[in-house]
């Protein structure tokens, strides 16, 4: 039911782990099924230099988590802000319809990490 790309990211997830002294941290729970993702980002000169994640969830949740870390690394904060859950799903060659909600987990955790970064900067 999953594409090869989803299975690849599921089997070999990129950027698993935590970042000590991260510049932004976002944690999101999925209201539909109860899954949880946590995302850490490192920012330098307005650009995301590193991202790591931990996810408690299904195959699609783990694959979208992995994919979004790859997508954000190297992007400016403004570019990262634009990443939607559809974009993550498309980057994985699609998700089964019943699994589309799983990609919200990654997109929402990213937004929260960006918000956390901004809040820390203005503090």
């Amino acid at each position, binding site marked *: 039911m999953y594409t090869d790309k989803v299975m690849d990211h599921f*089997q070999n997830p990129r950027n698993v782990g935590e970042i000590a002294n991260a510049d932004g941290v976002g944690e999101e729970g999925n209201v539909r099924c109860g899954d949880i993702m946590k995302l850490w980002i490192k920012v330098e000169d307005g650009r995301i230099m590193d991202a790591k994640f931990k996810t408690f969830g299904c195959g699609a949740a783990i694959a979208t988590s992995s994919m979004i870390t790859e997508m954000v690394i190297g992007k400016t904060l403004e570019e990262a802000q634009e990443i939607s859950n559809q974009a993550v799903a498309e980057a994985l060659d699609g998700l089964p319809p019943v699994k589309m909600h799983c990609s919200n987990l990654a997109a929402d955790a990213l937004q929260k990490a960006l918000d956390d970064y901004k809040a820390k900067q203005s503090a």
Partner: protein
Amino acid sequence: MERIYLDHAATTPVRPEVLEAMIPAYKNTFGNASSVYSWGREARKAIDDARAITADILGAEFNEIIFTGSGSEADNLAIKGAAWKQQHKGKHIITSAIEHHAVLDTVKWLEANGFDATYVPVDEDGLVSAAAVEEAIREDTILITIMHGNNEMGTIQPVEDIAVLAKDRGILFHTDAVQTVGSLPIHVKDMGVDMLSLAAHKFYGPKGVGALYVRKGVRLDPLIHGGAQERNRRAGTEDIPSIVGLTKALELADSERREVKPRLIAMRDRLIQGLEQIPDTKVNGHRDKRLPNNVNVCFRYIEGESLLLNLDMMGIAASSGSACTSGSLDPSHVLLAMGLSHEVAHGSLRLTLGRSSTEADVDYVLKHVPPIVKRLRDMSPLYQA
């Protein structure tokens, strides 16, 4: 790669001996059993022979067996048929919180159509207590339906005790024995039930055929109207090869049980004991009052679908009660009814052994599950090593 099928509670393969018995029924016994000429008489004899054998193995009488199109149909016929027939007497039905959806959704449908239902809870081992059933009985209770062996966590219910209660009060008692027929010795008269459902594909027979035992004197409204087949209780030209296949599979299961059951229990217990060694693991279901082939555990901090995908990569077929594996995105109603939290139920794994299972399969599972659990935990935000 090695492939190990450990989902026998979902379905089993048709045994070669069963297929062998079905082929002549397809090739030669094609007549319509309702016809008077020789082809019809041959077909009738094939069904009669099958019914006699099935009835005999279950401790029932010839006319007490109705062949159906599935286990679900047998459950539907028992519950809707009895409820409809007795609605002048009362409209209250008692069932449990851990039934298969074939029972649960049927009772819910009756609720939506003017009937009343009580869902008896279970304890942490998944056991329904006869006392709780007794407490739920009302003046207008017309039917009690409590399953025999649970398909998810394997707990075997005290149906004999419930049958006594029901009988004393003149209430009909149905049990869904889809998971136990074939695997446990079933004698309907000793059990004391009024109705009992079974499905051939759970004991190496074909899919799409089941049966309902209905004690003589119990009257049901049919679900399917039309011809006079199955003594007016299930219209439709009989599927002779499937009926023959069900019967052959039941005969084989019955004659081999003495050898198969202890072997399954030994492998089951070795799997449970081995998996329990993994930290933060919970065994679900009763330890002893348990289906011989059922293993069900929860690994905390991980989710079931990702566990199943990892097992599949190692060639192991299993199932889970995780929300992510269910179409509804709700975790197993059975595990929740046993008091597990949503989060713990999320990490459940069910392995169900079968005839083809070997000690080497048990070794293989015990070797591959721990590293998979560790890998997923290392990835989980809930886990602190």
